[in-house]
């Protein structure tokens, strides 16, 4: 029973770490996939734009769309405005006719395109998470939005509204967050992007590949990095404390057995080795349990918040979590192990 509880308690922080990593990487992959799927080759943002799109201001004048379209090799330029709603979700203001030219348009699962100023399109996971259907009213940004359509997920936005409406609500008339550019020769995207950067030195011009890999890489987001480290730290402390307590209890319970081993000639090293081996086994079992539990966490998240946190399983982190848990377990077992090893055999044999 004690062992089972220990495995459970060690497994919980392992799950926490794996879930956090799974959520951050899931969100990253989801965002990358949604941006890649729109068919643009180059992304242009304001020169002071931050790596995290949601944190970037709408400070890119709309006039740049035309200016960009006049550049050699630029086939099409489409601007969007992005506004944070429910972290980590954003609302994207699009000009549907331009957007359709770039992407081929959304796939409508229910309803149809944006018609009114306060029409909204929701992707299917978001609509499911918030139990919204076509015709429903949705409250956001102090406005009543009319759900005009439910779209298939995976294309740029989870929540799309008319660009002009969002610009007005954001007090950012004629301003954009991002301009997506399609070129006539995708094989020379890098050279075209470099040329655009030279032409517009005040803007940040990136190829789509650079944009998604830099902007949506959780390792490039300081807050995510710090948060991950904090959770790992908490996991280490919990695993250390659990193993320390468990092994201390084990030493108390097995005092007589330790005495027996010593009477048989068991050395201090042997006793310590036994304790550390047991701790390592606990760490191993706890990690395995934690990995199993992370699948449960993914199920729960995808069931209850499919749009907000698209969690994935990251097997690459399993050995890392195992190393973290094992290290914490072994350090946790060290003091009880040394206590056991230094037991006086006569006192230990007399222990009832």
């Amino acid at each position: 029973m004690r062992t089972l509880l220990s495995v459970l308690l060690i497994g919980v922080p392992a799950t926490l770490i794996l879930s956090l990593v799974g959520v951050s990487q899931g969100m990253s992959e989801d965002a990358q996939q949604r941006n890649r799927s729109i068919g643009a080759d180059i992304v242009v943002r304001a020169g002071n734009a931050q790596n995290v799109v949601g944190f970037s201001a709408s400070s890119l004048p709309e006039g740049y769309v035309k200016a960009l379209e006049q550049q050699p090799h630029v086939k099409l330029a489409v601007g969007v405005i992005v506004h944070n709603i429910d972290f980590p979700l954003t609302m994207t203001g699009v000009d549907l006719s331009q957007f359709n030219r770039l992407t081929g348009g959304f796939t409508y699962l229910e309803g149809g395109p944006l018609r009114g100023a306060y029409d909204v399109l929701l992707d299917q996971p978001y609509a499911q998470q918030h139990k919204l259907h076509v015709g429903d009213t949705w409250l956001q940004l102090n406005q009543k939005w009319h759900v005009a359509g439910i779209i298939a997920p995976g294309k740029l936005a989870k929540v799309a509204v008319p660009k002009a409406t969002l610009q007005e609500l954001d007090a950012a008339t004629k301003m954009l967050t991002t301009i997506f550019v399609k070129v006539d020769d995708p094989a020379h995207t890098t050279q075209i992007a470099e040329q655009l950067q030279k032409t517009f030195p005040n803007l940040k011009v990136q190829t789509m590949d650079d944009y998604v890999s830099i902007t949506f890489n959780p390792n490039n987001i300081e807050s995510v990095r710090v948060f991950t480290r904090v959770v790992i730290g908490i996991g280490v402390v919990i695993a250390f404390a659990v193993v320390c307590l468990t092994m201390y209890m084990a030493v108390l319970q097995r005092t007589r057995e330790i005495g027996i081993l010593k009477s048989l000639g068991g050395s201090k090293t042997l006793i310590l080795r036994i304790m550390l081996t047991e701790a390592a086994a606990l760490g191993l079992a706890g990690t395995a349990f934690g990995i199993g539990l992370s699948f449960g966490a993914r199920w729960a998240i995808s069931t209850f918040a499919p749009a907000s946190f698209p969690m994935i399983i990251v097997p690459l982190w399993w050995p890392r979590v195992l190393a973290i848990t094992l290290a914490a377990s072994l350090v946790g077992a060290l003091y009880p192990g040394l206590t056991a090893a230094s037991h006086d055999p006569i006192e230990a044999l007399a222990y009832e």
Partner: protein
Amino acid sequence: MNSAPIIEIRDLRKTYLVGKVQVPALRGVDLAVERGEFLSIVGPSGSGKSTLFHIIGGLTPPTSGQVRVADQDLSALSDAGRTRMRQRTVGFVFQKFNLLPNLTAGDNIEVARYIGGGNHKGDPHFAEILRLLGIAHRLGHKPSALSGGEQQRIAIARALVNQPAILLADEPTGNLDTENSKAVLEILRSLNERTGQTILMITHNPEAAAYGHRIIHMRDGRVVPELAVRRGDAENTETTERKT
């Protein structure tokens, strides 16, 4: 062939510190035990029998005096040295059997073999001991599934698996009924006679003590020389004890 005593003890003293109080457990013990001897040690509680055992068995160091066991000077041995001595030189049999409860009888024996560094599963000597103990068919059972007598026989097998020079049995029949006590004592005697195993046995029971070649009495941390008897004089033991 070494004819020197396997155990030679001179003026052995052991004092325990209980809190700030020094409690003498042994106050100058002199004793010699020959190879192949079966020695019974009797005496009231607190007479120092167990302390003497613990020192001979290397579980605790002497405070002063000379203790030579199987040609090793115990007073000069470090903790690690005494640990090594327990692995191969002595084997313990306890009143409460002291088997590891989560292991089978066979694994209890194998643990001792592993600790002793032994690797002689097909050892004919040990096979003879197992046959003598009559427990070969019970090795797959855990201690909880064995009777007291069987547990003690497993404990004896465990103590002998590394062919120690000396077997130390501390009240080996203390937790057994008369029938099992007799069986265990017969086994000890048989082991001694057939394999020449040196045995030291602590007991409160004069009948059990009579199984030894020699009986020594301890009182107040000393051996009482005038009460020492040899086998054949066992009847005198009770008479002598009554006189004291």
